[in-house]
């Protein structure tokens, strides 16, 4: 139960941060220029996307057996 609550809260935080990072005004920062030949905005979106997936994977790894029926 304890782990389940913790996972829930962390995942909710991911949602909030994702909402902020994937919307204006932050997106506006990356309007121009390129990184390694890739347009900034495109690079940024995929980077954040990847990080979010990684973070979610790590969060859901927390104690995989105990929360089964909670």
């Amino acid at each position, binding site marked *: 139960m304890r782990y389940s609550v913790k996972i*829930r809260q962390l*995942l*909710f935080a991911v949602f909030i941060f994702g909402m902020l990072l994937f919307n204006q005004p932050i997106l506006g920062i990356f309007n*121009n220029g*390129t990184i390694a030949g890739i347009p*900034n905005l495109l690079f940024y979106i*995929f980077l954040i996307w990847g990080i*979010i997936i990684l973070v*979610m994977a790590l969060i859901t790894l927390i104690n995989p057996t105990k929360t089964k029926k909670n």
Partner: protein
Amino acid sequence: MLQEWLILAVSFIYISILFFIAYYGDKRADEGRSIISNPYFYALSLAVYCSAWTFYGSVGHAANTGLSFLTIYIGPTLMAPLWWVILRKMIRISKRHHITSIADFISSRYGKSTVLGGTVTVIAVMGIVPYISLQLKAISSSYLIISHYPDTLAYTLPQHIPVIQDTAFYVTVVLALFAILFGTRNTDATERHEGLVAAIAFESVVKLLAFLLVGVFVTYTLFNGFSDIFAKALNDGRFTTMFNESADTEKGSWFGLILISMFAILFLPRQFQLAVVENVDEDHIRKAIWLFPLYLLIINIFVVPIAMGGLIHFQTEAVDADTFVLTLPLAVKQTGIALVVFIGGLSAATGMVVVASVALSTMVSNDLLMPILLGSRYVKANREQDLRGFLLLIRRGTIIIVLFLGYFYYKLVGSHYSLVNIGLISFAAVAQFAPSFLGGMFWKGGTRYGALSGLLSGFFTWGYTLAIPSLVSAGILPESLITEGFLGLAILKPTALFGLTGLDPIMHALFWSLLFNTGSYFIVSIFVKPSAIELSQATLFVDINKYSPEFEHRSLGRGTAPVAELRLLLRRFIGEKKSERLFKAYARKNDIDLESITQADSGMINLVEKRLSGVIGSASARIMISSLVKEKPVSLDEVMHILDETQQIVAYSHELERKSSELQEATRKLKKANEKLKTMDQFKDDFIATITHELRTPLTSVRAFSEILYDNPEIDVLQRQNFLGIIIKETERLTRLINQILDLQKIESQEMEWHFNTLNIAGLIKEAIEGMQKLFEEKNIKVSFNPDHHIMVKADRDRLLQVILNLLSNAFKFCNDADGEIVISMSIESSNLVVSIQDNGIGINEADQKIIFEKFRQAKTSSKTQRHAGSGLGLSIARQIIEAHNGKIWVESKTGEGAVFKFTLPNPVLKEQEIQK
């Protein structure tokens, strides 16, 4: 250009593989060795989200409008973390209530309403049929391109192709067959379609690999990697704004698109089917939370490079960007890659079509047709007939109807819209489910009429602002409707409702429809009272974790029904074997003899109703059951009461927790009390020892002197007088001691009678001093008491005198032998009379100051003077008396410096008259 026979052969092989996988999946499921029961298959099956729209349309969207296509995948990525709560609850509720579709979910939540279920079904069909047609269009046009490229025939409008030559028609037929074979194996829609899920997961792998293949091909064969494509694209002036989202975000559409896709991943019928109905284990969500977004990310990596590559490669040629994934390989004669891409597109489209048609057919048959058909005379007349065949026929028929609706829609209007637009229209339609669905899951206040008005207003706004304009652009409705508004009223222009301009059509529709939808849902819910069944369903849904399934079976519903009738009913829908198994299991669990009882209890009725819900939908199941059950109407209060009771059970466990902590506290206190008791016991023992000693000493001397007198009758008179004097003194001492004990006992047991009178305290003190005057003089002790005023208090004269005497005799006992001095004074401090009696004796140490007022206690230092001291009860009695007067008594002292005993009495009255000295 590829030979048509080759394309058809490869397609045929691919479809055959699908059939085989589905067949194998079902076979394994029947053997009890599921192949899909793991989180990877679950996540892959969810990727049915990526339809032909993703496969072909994303590139087209990226080429035409830039990066906003990504929102369609960012939305679900952001919803994924919320699955932990939302999807889990959806699955739990659906499993518990045998829910098989969104329509059933909403209908069941709001009191098993047929009207609501029907409404949701209509919205879903209207929203999804165009989406299905979009898939058919994609298959058809991709086939035309791959078989005719670069022939301009490829761009023939679908209306102009005869049905008999139309690939889409044959595809529709094959998909209908597939959906019927693997989507309607059984009447019970809650039984999973494992073969179907396995095939969908396989298709997800195929479309991903195909898309990656063309992506790598374009990026690394046609160009020299990402930076090469982007360098060329950025040099070309046309594309510079493409990597700039400001154009989209200014209109709010970036955020809007994320929101709409968040709803889509939950409420698209095909997503609900795979994520909820086909879910094997809710813990699969754990991995799907990140696996599914990962799939979305991977399939999107090459979208922008392909779009840029196509734009650069074809330059000014009129090639539809939706077809770049096919036309790019074809343009450089890579027909093999083009064929793989075609198969990939086919897998994306077929996956969506099959699942969507199965999901829609469940809705249409259970929530639209069943309530009507089950009320028909035919069904009622043949009470014993097995209805399973009839049910399957209806479900299969609706699959065919849904698919061909899609086909005809495609024939009629499908060609006028790009893939993305049709997809978004569907998204906007299913977004209408969000308020009543989410509201119903987390808010008990939502009611049937609230949900109905929300859904209807949202749906009509959607139809007016999105469906009508799409019909106008297809040439079915007059242009003037858009340009001049309905009835020529500019304020009712479908694309600028109430004068709202500046948003793109999708955002415009989304804004108004969700505004009306959410608004009326809440407002009507708040003002219209729910019925009993709505209320109980609301609680069962929202508090799904608080109620055990056993409770639901038993408590709600008060009726009885003939067991035979129930068995007959269930048998008609799920067959004799399964029906009997269910009844026997119930009987065994509840220790009932099935053959001997005639009336079923509410638990059994609920069980049958739940089971029927899975087959014919909750609203229809309700209708069937209520025709059998003699139900006492359950009032709102009763429902509240039942729910309350169960809540109390849950509350009870919380209560238990609280109690146990209270218990700990009590134990702690008890331990402390016990410690105290032990010391008290010790004191009591000591006291009894003392008291016995005190009683025995005078007794011994009384006896000794009496014996002397008895044995020596000739003793002289003087001597005799002396002895008798001692005997009298000792018996007096005995009497005093016994009186004290009796006093204490009386006060403690509250038997003491008090006689309160107003009395002059100075006079009382003087009386006490006078009484002891002789003793003081004997011991040469100086006593001073010089009051200035008369002070009157209300007190029991005799008792107070006893206190003062006790304090004086204490002072007397402990006074210095050489120059003893006792000072008595009185004053008024903060409306209390304070009397103090000071001696200059040995004093009392600090530890003893606290305990000398407790009964059975004496100051330890007093042991050597014990022969003077009485029982150790005097001070205790004094304290009891003073406290009975609402006063306080205490001592101030230091060892060796004498002691000051003080006591207070409340409410003194000062007499102005001075005391004459």
